[in-house]
């Protein structure tokens, strides 16, 4: 009889399985090391759960930007080390991991969050610890913390220009609106502001409808039926303002196309829609639908070519599980954020948050979008350009319209 009986087999396979699973499963896993002459930056982006496909790539972008800065000699004599984590698309976990990063890992700044609900969860943590969070998404505004740098645009300089364009004779002279959103703070606040805005434009309340769905909802049949019915009712051109997030976006677009509605019938303005959401969809039938961001991959200019090339090279080098030929706005915003932080730290000659914050005023950076983005002493908002993109047949967005310059960001909405 061999020594290898069932008990030992169980014990060894059990131990092997546990050791295989644990490093993958333990949620707030922070891989860090303490070395002299380095300054740590922390990333709060999920690599698991519903946001993984979108947020996961930002870890790599932050590292790529840090490598660029390190190659140019680092900051204040230190090299940057990027510490990543996995808050697993679980909103309270963002706060927990953020707290660990600030108080234990001692990161100089945090970069992270996609959804507003995760930012709201981290907000008290950065305020208590007097940390800095660079937030790379366009969002609902109405927030102005001295501990958060809003790298992307509030509605007044992203959503409202896009809606204005749709309502203008150059757009489609939209008269009615169907709002579909995931049920959380960003869609609800955006829609509230939009309704307030439309009221100031003299649009009746009967001209819009509002529907909310749970996170990762996918059964859009009934809602698309409702949109079809509303589109055929009298009162003028209908536009869908889509604020669902994550996997709900492709699911919605697929159902929309399958029910035979084209962008010439009812255009969809997808406020959170990026190239990655079109992966796996037949975009031939979606051509002409819209999004609005502060960066689109087809932005003209040398800075963009350089950024796209660095990203492709970086993906090739690190074997990151993301497409080398796709760049989305939050990636660029994260890239801008790391550079802005490094510029501020250099200008301040220190990594301490109060000094770095002092140095924000007057910074400007050549963003891959082609605009010169800048910050003022007034608040922690970054002024960005505005693009309206239009879906093309090859799963990307063409630039349909872009703003003249970078509108001054207005943190607080005046529309409700």
């Amino acid at each position: 009889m061999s020594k290898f009986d069932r008990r030992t087999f169980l014990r060894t396979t059990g131990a092997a399985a546990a050791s295989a699973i644990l490093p993958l499963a333990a949620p707030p896993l922070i891989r860090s090391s303490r070395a002299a002459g380095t300054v740590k930056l922390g990333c709060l982006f999920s690599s698991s759960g519903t946001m993984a496909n979108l947020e996961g790539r930002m870890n790599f972008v932050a590292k790529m930007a840090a490598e660029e800065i390190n190659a140019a000699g680092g900051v204040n004599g230190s090299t940057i080390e990027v510490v990543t984590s996995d808050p697993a698309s679980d909103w309270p976990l963002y706060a927990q991991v953020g707290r660990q990063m600030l108080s234990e890992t001692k990161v100089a700044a945090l970069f992270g969050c996609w959804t507003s609900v995760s930012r709201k969860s981290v907000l008290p943590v950065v305020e208590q610890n007097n940390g800095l969070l660079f937030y790379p998404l366009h969002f609902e505004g109405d927030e102005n913390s001295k501990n958060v740098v809003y790298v992307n645009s509030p509605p007044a300089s992203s959503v409202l220009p896009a809606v204005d364009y749709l309502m203008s004779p150059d757009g489609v002279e939209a008269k009615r609106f169907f709002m579909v959103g995931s049920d959380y703070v960003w869609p609800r606040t955006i829609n509230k502001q939009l309704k307030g805005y439309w009221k100031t434009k003299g649009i009746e309340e009967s001209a819009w409808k509002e529907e909310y769905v749970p996170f990762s909802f996918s059964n859009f049949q009934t809602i698309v039926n409702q949109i079809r019915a509303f589109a055929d009712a009298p009162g003028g051109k209908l536009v869908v303002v889509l604020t669902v997030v994550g996997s709900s976006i492709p699911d919605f677009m697929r159902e929309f196309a399958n029910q035979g509605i084209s962008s010439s019938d009812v255009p969809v303005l997808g406020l959170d829609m990026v190239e990655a959401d079109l992966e796996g969809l037949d975009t031939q039938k979606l051509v002409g639908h819209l999004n609005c961001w502060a960066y689109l991959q087809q932005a003209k200019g040398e800075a963009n070519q350089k950024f796209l090339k660095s990203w492709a090279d970086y993906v090739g080098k690190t074997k990151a599980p993301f497409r080398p030929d796709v760049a989305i706005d939050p990636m660029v915003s994260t890239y801008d954020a790391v550079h802005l932080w490094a510029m501020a730290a250099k200008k301040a000659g220190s990594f301490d948050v109060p000094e770095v914050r002092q140095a924000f005023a007057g910074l400007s950076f050549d963003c891959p979008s082609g605009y010169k983005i800048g910050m003022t002493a007034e608040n922690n908002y970054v002024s960005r350009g505005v693009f309206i993109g239009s879906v093309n047949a090859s799963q990307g967005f063409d630039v349909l319209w872009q703003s003249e310059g970078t509108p001054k960001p207005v943190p607080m909405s005046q529309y409700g």
Partner: protein
Amino acid sequence: MWRRSLLAGLLGAVVACGPAAAAFDRAAIAAQACGGAAGMTDAANAMAAGLVDASADDAKWTVALAGAAIDRGLKCGPGGAMIVRSEGAVNAVTLSPVDGGGGTSPLLSLKNRPLFETVRAAATLRSGATADERGAALAALERRAGSLPPEFFEKAAETEADAGLKARILGVGQAALLNSPDMPKRIAAIEHIAATSDRRALTRVDGLKSDPAYRTDPAFRGAVDEGVASIGRWLALSNALNVFYNGLSFASILFMASAGLAIIFGLMGVINLAQGEFIMIGAYVAYAVQETLRAVAPSLIDWYLIAAIPVVFVVTAGIGVAVEATIVRRLYTRPLMTLLATWAVSLLLVNLMRVAVGTQNLQFVTPWYISGGRLLMGDFIVTWNRLFAIVFAAVTLALTWFVLKRTPLGLNIRAVTQNRAMAGCVGIATRRVDMMAFGLGSGLAGLAGLALCPIYNVNPQMGSNFIVDSFMVVVLGGVGTLAGTAIASLGVGQINVLIEPLYGAVAAKVIVLLMIIAFLQWRPEGLYAVKGRRK
């Protein structure tokens, strides 16, 4: 709204140009098409106005130019407008080959896109080679008939050779005469519009109630009232059908996701939290089959969904058997431990997939048989991908039922389920039966992944979306019965779809959960309880 403004623009163009509109000035139109957004609008209007009297040759040219503008094959260079095709560039005016280098291709604005689509369809109607092609163009024009000059359809019908199509063109032309000064024509238009009976028709006919003629002309009033009533009746029916179809589609998804669990949890009592990951693996295997077909037999790639059925079943069943033999088997007496162990398996599978393939959504080919949908009646639309899932679920239900009730394996599974000790006593190899049952359950989950890949995004996390719903359905249906699972899916699906338009999707989910809790208070064993001794 653009329709009305376009109509005004067209009329303006026709009036301004007068008889000269007949002359189709290709060079001017091509130049306009390169003149920015406003120029493109002018070009589309000029083409639409010119098409009434255009020669077949001019119509063909219009198809080429409008098509190029839509597909971004139009290029505006220093040498004028060009059309870039896969076989080379041609001059946009003469369609003779040119050296195509440089220039930018203008992007159609939101306003211009429908104009060019209408022009392309109208020109195809005049010049399409086959009756099918012209018929498809007419179908595209039907919704936009009002944006073309009224005489267009009469002219198109004159030159149409196919008798059936000719009648259809005249019909569409009639519908475009809703605002004609000639009263019999108006009434004919109302009758024609009312025949389609969708909500758009209702809006158009109902809008006529504010027309002065509605008060003065009894025949007109009668036609409008009759039209509104008839459309209303059909709309109510088509809405009911829509709700039923949506419910059925949701039910088929719920059933596919929970059929495997009905066997694993329902019959065997194993709380398998990795069930969602078997669904995910099924979808990934379908993807592997698609990629293999792409490499080996590219002409058959549209059939990967069918070709993958046996492969998906065998692979996921194999993984299920392996999980059962290595992990679950040891834990049959400790159900809570199976919960933990299978949860670990689920994490392991998700992370393995993420490391091996990546987190992005997989790119599936959309075969023609599951792409798009068809308006059957009024507003009732049948989308092929959902129909595929419904049929797939029905066939799965039938086959699984057959296996459980009519085969020796099914008899053994039921025997072990009802009384494990007794089944063992009469000589059934209970261990082997457990393994086969677990394999069957996993295979069914794999098939669910296959059926769902035309509807859902396929990524490593997709499984977690199904796990709660599928446990809910199995428990509601009554642990241990397939029929209960099927009926519970139908019930949950239909109720969800009925509530959703009234209170929204979030509330629908909550209300359905509350109803299930209330129901289980009253009938803890679920819809169908297995009669006989358990455990």
